[in-house]
């Protein structure tokens, strides 16, 4: 089987879907498109491992299908973030309550877990990885890829083989109530900070500091220059900016709600 997909403005197909199809579906099933693309990924079992090709180049080999799907998703994320047109791509999760709650943090900060728990609490899903801020409307465009979940995360499925360190899960697997949101403006920007065992604590972040933080998590900043910074400034100017320290993401969602940030 072969399907076409759209990751923001990046269009591609995946060939050779067979045994790999469930993992591929969990990763990018919500990105299905119908536009003829010119980039092709192919996943094949080779000996006792899996191989990922992009056109004719081997991108990755891994002992499990999850490994090559993760590698494919990493490549898709990178190209989608750097090639998106008319938008500034920020490394952040995004969900929609009344407006968008942007969750921007480095790997290990709890970004994906907090994003998932917000969806579990009723928010619409936009992305867990790349928030594309439209340069005209300042709305966040949907990029509803599967969530990349690392071992140790509360979202990591029980019973996974020991040699699997990361899996990709569709948001619907994590929350049956999940719904996919459309473009929306940003109302709250959250900088997550996971600290094992910590109670949830919310502190305001100066807007200029948040612009600096977002700029450090924007892949196309050098190419797009001052115009991209201007977009970040305009988005931050209209948003509440907070840092959330937490040991339990569900409790962090409750704390955000108590502060009126999810109204």
């Amino acid at each position: 089987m072969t399907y076409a997909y759209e990751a923001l403005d990046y269009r591609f197909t995946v060939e050779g879907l067979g045994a790999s199809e469930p993992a591929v579906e969990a990763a990018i099933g919500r990105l299905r498109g119908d536009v003829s693309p010119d980039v092709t990924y192919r996943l094949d079992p080779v000996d006792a491992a899996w191989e990922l090709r992009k056109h004719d180049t081997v991108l990755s080999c891994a002992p499990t299908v999850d490994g090559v799907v993760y590698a494919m998703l990493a490549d898709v994320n990178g190209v989608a973030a750097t090639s998106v047109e008319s938008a500034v791509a920020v490394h952040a999760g995004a969900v929609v309550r009344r407006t968008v709650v942007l969750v921007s943090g480095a790997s290990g900060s709890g970004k994906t877990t907090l994003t998932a728990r917000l969806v579990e609490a009723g928010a619409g899903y936009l992305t867990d990885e790349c928030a594309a801020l439209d340069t005209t409307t300042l709305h966040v465009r949907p990029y509803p890829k599967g969530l990349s979940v690392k071992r140790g995360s509360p979202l990591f499925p029980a019973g996974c083989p020991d040699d699997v360190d990361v899996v990709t899960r569709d948001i619907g697997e994590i929350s049956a109530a999940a719904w996919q949101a459309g473009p929306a403006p940003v109302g709250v920007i959250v900088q997550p900070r996971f600290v094992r065992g910590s109670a949830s604590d919310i502190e305001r972040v100066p807007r200029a500091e948040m612009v600096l933080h977002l700029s450090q998590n924007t892949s196309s900043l050098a190419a797009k220059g001052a115009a991209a910074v201007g977009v970040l400034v305009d988005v931050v100017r209209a948003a509440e900016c907070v840092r959330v320290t937490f040991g339990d993401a569900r409790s962090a969602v409750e704390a955000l709600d108590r502060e009126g940030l999810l109204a």
Partner: protein
Amino acid sequence: VIPRHAPEMDVWELDGELVIWHAGSVHRLGGAAVLLWQAVDARTPLEELYRRLAGAHGLSVAAVATDLGPVVARLVDDGLLVDEES
């Protein structure tokens, strides 16, 4: 030393702080750095700027120079301020 703002910068004000884009980097200025930044006019020597800020805020010139010296050094290092005379 007569400080002036480096050319080709974009500056935004957010809640009393400044965000500056210059030479491929984003900078954030807050507090006393903003006051200094706003006082720089490419004509006034640094010592005179210190005197004006000290007078405006009821501080000694020495105290202002002590506080702002490292700020000026950082702004020069970052390329945001240059010496008009150099």
